[in-house]
């Protein structure tokens, strides 16, 4: 029973003997093998660590177990929230929207505005036009957005709703109510690609639909656009803008969701920050656009390059080399030398890397996440002399990504020990970690169960992270971002060293106060 002086929650309550008894007694009625024959559980658990299991696991064709990707509309919602006073609007069932909002909110610890038009059986039969007509008007009346960015769920895609016609139809019937709100729309079928595809489709649609025809393009030689991509690190957005501002005040971030998920206490604001619609509507006039996530902007790139005839370049400012390339690109595009301040930041980063390298050098890492994130993180690990033993990308792009990764790995001292696993999931990774173990695992919250099962420490870098607070506020981009990566990884190595050496009178001779 609870001791009122020391009330404990479930964590310790269920350790009390009376509850242990309850749990033991419950086994009589249970059918899981652990309650019937625990030795059988041990036997199977052992087998799942074997090469035999790995082979069976890797011959899977139909079932995905513990994925490391999400679906298109999630990315579309993030893209939409990068624009000022914009309400993401999902044409489909409201269940999807409840999921997107919860997912982002658990990661950012911030509210996530997004509406749906609550399509149901009748919409499945008759199409979702009626929902769209009411939905846009209600959304506009209640949330007074400057832009409504419409994406679709798989339901709307399967029944084949014609978004463009629906939006036009809704506007025509709205008695003028929708005349002063921009309504952009993108098809984001969940059964194609992943969340980064949805991000791409939404950014492309917003840019195409807000901007005039290329015949009206008036090039502004000083203006440069930066598209950040599906970026869960708000600090990265801030740092990229900071670096850009050192070169020019005419560099505009297109899809800047930093402020939306970083509002202060005192008052709730539905919308916060974002790329102004004025800037979004003139994106076509820029001299060039830099995408920071090549593989989150594949379709957007086509619009910019082929339709807008604008210079389009990619840079991935994660790690030292990635940031160098980004900085040089800015220097080239603006015609300005690299500012002293950046040179100093770079030198400080390199200094820190030289201080800490012994702890990452030769350490084996397994890492998983989105394609561009992986290109950045792996390049940093290679720069530090770490070994990216397993690089797993569940939403690996079909073209180019593996070659890009191989180019990075070619610089590694251990290039032959590095493996790229495209389109594999985290249950595949479990087999890899058991059969070809590593020292550290880098990834999102779902790596937690791999840590539990394998004992390999998880360094939380990625998306989503639900079980640690405030990491998303930091940067992983730019020189300061690289310093954060260095700090997190090095200190995780040191924490593990302490963990392994803390046994008194046995290993604690190595439990040093100075490392």
């Amino acid at each position, binding site marked *: 029973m609870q001791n009122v002086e020391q009330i404990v*929650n479930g964590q310790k309550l269920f350790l009390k003997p009376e509850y242990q008894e309850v749990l033991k007694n419950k086994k009589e009625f249970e059918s899981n093998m652990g309650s019937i024959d625990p030795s059988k559980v041990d036997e199977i658990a052992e087998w799942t660590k074997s090469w035999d299991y790995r082979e069976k696991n890797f011959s899977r064709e139909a079932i995905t177990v513990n994925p490391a990707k*999400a679906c298109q509309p999630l990315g579309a919602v993030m893209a939409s929230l990068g624009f000022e006073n914009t309400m993401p609007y999902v044409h489909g069932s409201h269940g999807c929207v409840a999921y997107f909002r919860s997912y982002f909110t658990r990661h950012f610890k911030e509210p996530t505005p997004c509406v749906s038009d609550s399509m149901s059986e009748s919409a499945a039969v008759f199409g979702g036009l009626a929902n*769209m007509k009411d939905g846009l008007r209600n959304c506009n*009346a209640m949330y007074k957005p400057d832009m409504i960015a419409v994406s679709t769920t798989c339901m709307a895609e399967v*029944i084949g709703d014609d978004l463009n016609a629906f939006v036009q139809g809704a506007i025509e019937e709205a008695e003028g109510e929708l005349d002063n709100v921009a309504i952009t729309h993108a098809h984001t079928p969940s059964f194609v690609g992943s969340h980064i595809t949805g991000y791409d489709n939404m950014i492309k649609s917003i840019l195409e639909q807000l901007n005039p025809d290329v015949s009206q393009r008036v090039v502004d030689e000083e203006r440069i656009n930066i598209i950040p991509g599906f970026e869960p690190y708000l600090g990265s957005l801030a740092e990229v803008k900071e670096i850009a501002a050192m070169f020019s005040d005419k560099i505009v971030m297109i899809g800047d969701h930093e402020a939306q998920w970083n509002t202060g*206490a005192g008052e709730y604001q539905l919308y916060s920050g974002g790329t102004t619609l004025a800037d979004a509507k003139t994106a076509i006039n820029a001299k060039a656009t830099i995408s920071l996530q090549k593989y989150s902007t594949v379709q957007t790139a086509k619009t910019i390059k082929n339709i807008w005839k604008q210079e389009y370049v990619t840079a991935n400012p994660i790690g030292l080399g990635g940031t160098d390339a980004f900085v040089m690109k800015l220097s080239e595009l603006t015609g300005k030398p690299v500012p002293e301040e950046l040179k100093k930041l770079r030198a400080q980063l390199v200094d820190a890397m030289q201080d800490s390298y012994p702890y990452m050098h030769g350490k084996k890492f397994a890492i998983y996440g989105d394609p561009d994130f992986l290109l950045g993180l792996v390049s940093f690990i290679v720069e530090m002399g770490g070994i990216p033993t397993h690089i797993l990308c569940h939403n690996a792009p079909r073209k180019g990504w593996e070659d890009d990764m191989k180019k990075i790995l070619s610089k590694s001292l251990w290039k032959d020990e590095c493996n790229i696993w495209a389109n594999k999931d985290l249950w595949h990774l479990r087999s890899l970690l058991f059969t070809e173990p590593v020292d550290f695992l880098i990834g999102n919250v779902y790596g937690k169960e791999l840590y539990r099962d394998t004992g390999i420490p998880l360094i939380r870098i990625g998306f989503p992270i639900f079980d640690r607070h405030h990491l998303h506020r930091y940067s992983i981009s730019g020189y300061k971002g690289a310093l954060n990566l260095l700090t997190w990884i090095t200190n995780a190595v040191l924490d593990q060293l302490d963990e392994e050496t803390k046994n008194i009178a046995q290993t604690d001779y190595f439990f040093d106060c100075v490392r």
Partner: protein
Amino acid sequence: MGPLNLENLQKEAIAEILESYPEKLSKNRAKHLGVDSPEESKGACDTSRSNKQTVPGVMSQRGCAYAGSKGVVWGPVKDMIHISHGPIGCGQYSRAGRRNYYIGTTGIDTFVTMNFSTDFTEKDIVFGGDKKLKKALEEIDVLFPLNNGISIQSECPIGLIGDDIHAVAKKHKADSAKPTIAVSCEGFRGVSQSLGHHIANDMIRDEIMPDDSARKDFESTPYDVAIVGDYNIGGDAWSSRILLEEMGLRVIAQWSGDATYKEMAIAPKAKLNLLHCYRSMNYIARHMEQEFGVPWIEYNFFGPTKTTESLRKIAACFDETVQAKTEEVIAKYTAMTDQVIAKYRPKLEGKTVMLYVGGLRPRHVIGAYEDLGMEVVGTGYEFGHGDDYKRTKEEISRSTLIYDDVNEYELEAFVKKLKPDLVASGVKEKYVFQKMGLPFRQMHSWDYSGPYHGYDAFAIFAKDMDLAMNSPVWSHTKAPWDTEEKGA
């Protein structure tokens, strides 16, 4: 605030919202919003419209039928594997977020926090996914040989592309000799997660209830009961069953938090079904009554007053030995909960609360707050039906704002108007109110604490509410240079 003032304020709050709406929206929402009080003869609890289509374009907090089936009813059954059948998202967003606690070796003999998906691509949409599904079932049996069955949880496209998952399940069941259960819980069905509960219950009825293999040799006692509709969030069902066992009852099944297939199948052997979440499992309780003659009663284990009431109600269904033991249990724990109340009530007395949750909580937790001297001034259901609202009437003790399927816009306006001291709702709402400087507790996940069911759990509930209400952090919102009050 006097009762009349409170009622006027509540009515004003509704009127202001309705005025700001376009006509059609206003007309619709007017039927879902109202005020009720114990004295009222036909108040909002009797008249409120519920379980209707959500108006398009609003920020509803509702989920879908898939969430009701996979997320609520089936997902927690621990020794079965539940496939999210369709595109990748649904399974990912609902993975391991609901805190359905269980004991088991995850990935080997239990699977609750994992995500199994058929990860549909365009090809599957165009050519159908039945073959892929059959292969998926076979692969699962190879890689997870200790699974005690597989359920197939349909996502939206399945019902739209004409797949016959029930035929696939039947075939696999024959091939594997293991339960294989197809559930047509596509997210677009119905108006909320509620229909998903119903569909999930129907599949338990059709696929598990007829399986008498575990019932055949089951040795019954006169004291066998089953807990139905407890999802063991944060361990709720464990802190409930300890009380029932101390009363001299034998809990033979626990649905569906920490449940196993066998517990589902032997439940009809119970002498009495104890129903906690009426909304999500009344269907199967009624079925077991009709088919197997197992009576059921509802109970409420939030807060000592309701727990004690419920224990006596349960005991009354059994003999005097159980009744005598029950009094001992009540006496033993009441000594502790009295101390909890003595410790926390003075700090919480008179504080007002607004609730917005789902299932049973919009009414069931009112008593627990009242045990702490707190006053609930508004409550509503995400996916309640008329019978939920009728049951709510019995729980309210003052003029109470009743809001059905309230959207974010309305909830924010209500809170600004009524200025409660605490808002208790879900994660999507949490930070909206915390930004206003309002203490908030998530009452779906117990805000990563709990359990909240039973006497021991009440101590945690009280401690958590005190923590939320009396933390120093809320006093920091106003900066020293601010002249005006900030926050709600």
